[in-house]
């Protein structure tokens, strides 16, 4: 006979599964534990207990070859079909899911995601163009939101990404964003030619901190 602990655990699994199944948006672990304790009168399970329950569900899905999993997106749980069945769903929904955001929107979103909280002038500066249109579009789409005001002159609005952004990009949290590559790394990329990488290494060996040091000598050659 199953121990009481096991029964409770299974109860939590069932509650978690039911809530995540029925919800239209990611369900937070705290929401699951609150509901669970309110209805059963049991102590509130901890977030890690909820996490474990979800992990067990996913193992069960895996073992029984279910076509969906529970994903931890936007700090909550969301049921999503597995990638291997994507062609069928695309066919059913009658179209390819095309790339949603245009290049300028994606660029603006990247700057906001990595530098948040960030003001529009900062975004403009990085991109070298006025980003008002892109920022407004992203606000409209719910990808970003105003998160405060900067203390600098004019108190410009600060922007940050939303939970909707995390969900739409399949991220648990901002920590899960891929790391921005360091400039040195980018320059070592084959897209930039070897000479440049060598130059950089040379400068580092010579103890120049700045990558533009030694420019004066180079000027003569280039012009």
């Amino acid at each position: 006979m199953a121990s009481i602990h096991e029964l409770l655990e299974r109860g939590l699994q069932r509650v978690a599964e039911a809530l995540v199944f029925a919800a239209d948006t990611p369900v937070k672990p705290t929401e699951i534990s609150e509901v669970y304790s309110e209805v059963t009168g049991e102590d509130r399970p901890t977030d890690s207990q909820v996490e474990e329950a979800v992990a067990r569900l996913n193992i069960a899905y895996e073992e029984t070859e279910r076509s969906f999993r529970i994903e931890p997106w936007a700090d909550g749980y969301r049921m999503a079909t597995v990638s291997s069945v994507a062609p069928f769903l695309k066919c059913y929904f009658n179209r390819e899911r095309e790339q949603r955001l245009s290049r300028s929107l994606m660029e603006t979103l990247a700057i906001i995601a990595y530098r948040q909280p960030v003001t529009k002038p900062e975004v403009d500066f990085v991109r070298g163009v006025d980003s008002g249109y892109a920022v407004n579009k992203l606000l409209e789409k719910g990808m970003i939101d105003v998160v405060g005001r900067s203390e600098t002159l004019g108190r410009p609005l600060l922007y940050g990404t939303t939970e909707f952004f995390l969900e739409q990009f399949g991220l648990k949290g901002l920590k899960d964003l891929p790391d921005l590559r360091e400039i040195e790394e980018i320059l070592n990329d084959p897209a930039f030619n070897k000479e440049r990488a060598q130059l950089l290494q040379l400068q580092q060996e010579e103890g120049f901190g700045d990558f533009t040091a030694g420019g004066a000598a180079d000027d003569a050659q280039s012009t």
Partner: protein
Amino acid sequence: MYRIRLEEFEGPLDLLLYFIKRDELDVFDIPIAQIADEYLEYVRVLEEVDLDSVGDFLYMAALLINIKARMLLPKQEVDEEGEPIDPRRELVERLLEYIRYKEASSFLVDLEQRRSERFTRGHASAEARKWESEAEISYDATVFDLISSLKRVLTEAPEEPSHSVVREEYTIEEQQEFILELLARERKVSFAVTMKGRSRAFIVTTFLSILELARQQRLRIALKKNDPSDFLLEYRKPPEDENDAEARSPLTNQS
């Protein structure tokens, strides 16, 4: 609002990067003089098609020229520690920073791509809602697409719209002549009668020309009593031209 993008150069930094990649230039040793010239050439083209964003490009062009000028100075600029400053430094730093975020943007594209393989509940309705407001941005048009669609619309447009308008070109000057000639002959005419059967354009232009003539004191306007729908125009002798008036046809009374 619409934006026109020429090929892949969305912003001034993109354009610079394009030059650098195309000519395999050293990021740390950008031949500013050459780049600045090429850059300006591009800005000139841009001015023709997209005045909106040309400002951003002009700023960069000015920066390039500034750097070019500073590099021509015989005396090298130094920082507070006496180290020489490369005038291009700020630009290079900006370019590299921009490259980082362009990369970050491609990370997001990958994430979005991966996420798009996963379907969630409530997907269809949420999708549909999003797509309704989507049309505008998901279409990456070039200026050539826009021009060709304009061309198509223009050629497909019916020659004669439902309110077929034959454009009547009247100028105020012509109508002034017309009125003066008429008054020289008739001396006194009714506006309503004169305008009967005429087109709106004719009437409007004539009306404006009458106002102009009245201002120049070359005719008199008399409002008819009890009839606000019409007014009379009366010949007025040009003040400086006595002989001409006498030579005109004799006065004929209007009924």
